[in-house]
C-alpha cells in the first residue's frame, strides 16, 4: 500500500473515530452558558477531528498514487512484530510475575531476537539489567512496581 492508500485509510479511521467520539460526547451534559458542562469541549474537539480527518482524506485523494511508504518487509517485518509482541507480553504479564522476573525474561528474549549471542551470556546480561533496574528503581527510588505472585 502506498502513501496515498495510507492517507485514505488514516482519514477513514479518523472519521470513524470522530463519529464514535461525537456520539459519546453528545451524551455528556452540555450545561448552560454560565455553567458549561463536561460535554462542551469534547463536542468541539470531535468536530475538529472530523474536519481534520476530511483534510487527510482530501490530501490523500490528491496525492500521486506512486508515493511509497517505507514499511519493513519479510524478515524485517517479523522482527518488528516480534519485538512488539514481546513488549505486549511483558507488560501484560508484569502484574503477575513482577518487575524482576518479568524484566529478566523480556530482556532475555529481546537480546536473543536482536543478536546471535549464546544463551548463557544472554542470561547474564538480562539478569544484570533486571537486577540493576530493581535495585535502582524499586529499592533506591521506591517506585512501587507490581510485586507479582513471588513477592518481588
Amino acid at each position, binding site marked *: 500500500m502506498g502513501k496515498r492508500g495510507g492517507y485514505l485509510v488514516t482519514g477513514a479511521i479518523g472519521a470513524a473515530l470522530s463519529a464514535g467520539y461525537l456520539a459519546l460526547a453528545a451524551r455528556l451534559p452540555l450545561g448552560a452558558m454560565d455553567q458549561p458542562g463536561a460535554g462542551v469541549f469534547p463536542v468541539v474537539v470531535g468536530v475538529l477531528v472530523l474536519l481534520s480527518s476530511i483534510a487527510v482524506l482530501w490530501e490523500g485523494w490528491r496525492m500521486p498514487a506512486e508515493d511509497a511508504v517505507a514499511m519493513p518487509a519479510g524478515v524485517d517485518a517479523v522482527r*518488528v512484530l516480534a519485538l512488539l509482541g514481546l513488549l505486549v507480553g511483558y507488560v501484560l504479564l508484569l502484574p503477575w510475575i513482577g518487575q524482576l522476573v518479568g524484566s529478566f525474561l523480556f530482556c532475555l528474549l529481546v537480546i536473543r531476537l536482536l543478536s546471535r549471542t549464546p544463551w548463557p551470556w544472554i542470561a547474564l546480561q538480562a539478569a544484570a539489567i533486571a537486577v540493576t533496574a530493581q535495585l535502582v528503581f524499586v529499592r533506591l527510588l521506591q517506585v512501587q512496581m507490581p510485586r507479582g505472585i513471588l513477592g518481588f
Partner: protein
Amino acid sequence: MDPIEGLLYGFGVALSFQNLAAALLGALVGTMIGVLPGLGPVAGVAMILPLSYAFEPVTGLIMMAGIYYGAMYGGSTTAILLNMPGESASVMTCIDGYQLTKKGRAGAVLALVAAGSFVGGTVSVVGVMLFAPWLAKLGILFGPAEFLALAGGGLLILSRISGGSFAAGIFPMSLGLMLSTVGQEAITAQNRFTFGYLELAQGVELVAAVVGLYGIAEILTLVESRRAAPPPVPVRLREMLPTKTEWRRSAPSFGRGTAVGFLFGLLPGPSAAMSSFASYRLEKAVSKYRDEIGHGAVEGVAGPETANNAAATSSMVPLLALGIPFGSVTALMLAAMMVHGIQPGPLLMQSNADVFWGVIASLYIGNIALLVLNIPMIGLWVSMLRVPRHIFLPIILVIAVIGSYGVGNSMVDVYGLILLGVVGYLLRKLDFQLAPMVIGLVLGPLIEKHLREGLFMSGGDLLVFVESPIALGIWILVALVLAGGALAPLLRRRGANDRSSP
C-alpha cells in the same frame, strides 16, 4: 534585607558543606533521571520527596531544585541523541537535535544545550532575586481570560510548527486534543470516554504518551534493519565542542530563549513545556537561519532548551514569593516545606530568610554545578550511541515501562505507552508530525479549563475573554503572527521578484 545582603546571607547558607553537596547531588541525580526515558523532573522530585524529609528543610529544597533543573537539562540528552524525549518539554528539541546528531554534531549540540541551560538558568536567577515580589504579581494578573488567549492562541500558532502538509499537522493535533479529554474532567468530576473502566478515569499520562509516541516508535523503527546502524565515529574532543559559527548562531537564541522561558515560568501550568513550544516558534519566526530550522539548525535546539531551564528557575518565583505552586514540581517543593512546618506565603522572605535566600543562592550554585558536571559527561552520553543495540534497546524499554508505571502507579499508563508507540510508529511512516499531537495533549486541558472557568466566572458572558487588556493584547499578537505567517511567503516572493526584475 536588600537583594545583595540577602544573597550574601544566602550564599552563607548554600555554601555549607551539606547544602553544597545537596545542590551537586541534586543536579547530578536530576541529570541522570532526566536522561532516562519516562522519568522527568516531576517523577524525579516526587521520588526524592520522601528522602528529603530526613534533611534540614533548606537542604531538602536545594536538592529538589537541583533535581528539577538537572532533569530539565538531562531530558534533552536522549531527545538529541536518540530522538526520544524524556518529557514534553524536550519534544521540540528532538526535531533539530536529532537531525544534528545524524550529521555528527551530537557533542556540539549537547555542549550548546549545557551552555544555554546555564545562561537561561543564571539570568533567570538574577531576575528572581531582584524582582521576585514584584514578578509574583504577574502571575496574579493572569486569570482564565488571559490563559485562554495564551493556550488557545498558542494552539492556533503551533499547529504547523514542525512543517509538513496542512493535514500532517492538524490531524495529529486534533488527535492529541481528543486524547486529552479521556478520563475524569477536573471541573465537575465527570468521567468521559472511560467506558465504565475506573482505571481510565485518571486520563492519558503525558509522560507515557510522549515516551510512547517518540521512544517506542523510534525503537520499532530502529529494529527494522537487521543490523544496527554503524555507530558514529568516535567523537574527538575538538569535534565535541561547538564551532565558532555554532556559538555565534546560538547566542541570540540563548537570549530569546531566556526571555521566553523566564516569562512562562512565572505563570501557572506546564510552563517549561509551553515555553519550549513558544521558543521554537519564535526561533522559526525571527531567527536569521529560520529556513534551516526543522532540518538540523542549532537555533532550534538552543532556543527551547534555554527556555525550559529558564522557566524551571523562574517558576520558583510564585512558590517563594506567594507560596503558591504553579506546577507539579513546585507543588512538591511546597509539600516539603509544609512537612517541615515552614509556612509558605508572601512573608517567607522575612519569616524564613534562610529558606528564601538559601534556595536562591543554591540556584546560582546549581547552575554552575550543572555546567561543570555536564561538560565532561557529554563524552559519556555520546558514547551511549556506541552501546550495542541489542543491549541498549531492552534497557531503554525496561526503563520506559518502569518510568511510565511509576508516575501514577498504574498499569494503564504502561498500556498507553505501548499503544501510542504503535500509533506514533504508523503516523511517522505516513509523514504525520508528532509534535503537534503532544502540543494538543498539553494545551487541550488548559484550553478547556480556562474556557469553562472563565464562563463560570463571568456568568456566561463571552466578552470576559477579550475585556482584559492582557488577553486582548495576546489575541492581537496571535492574529498578527497568523497573518504574518500567511503573508510572509507572498511578501518574500514579491521581494524576490522585485530584485530579479531590473
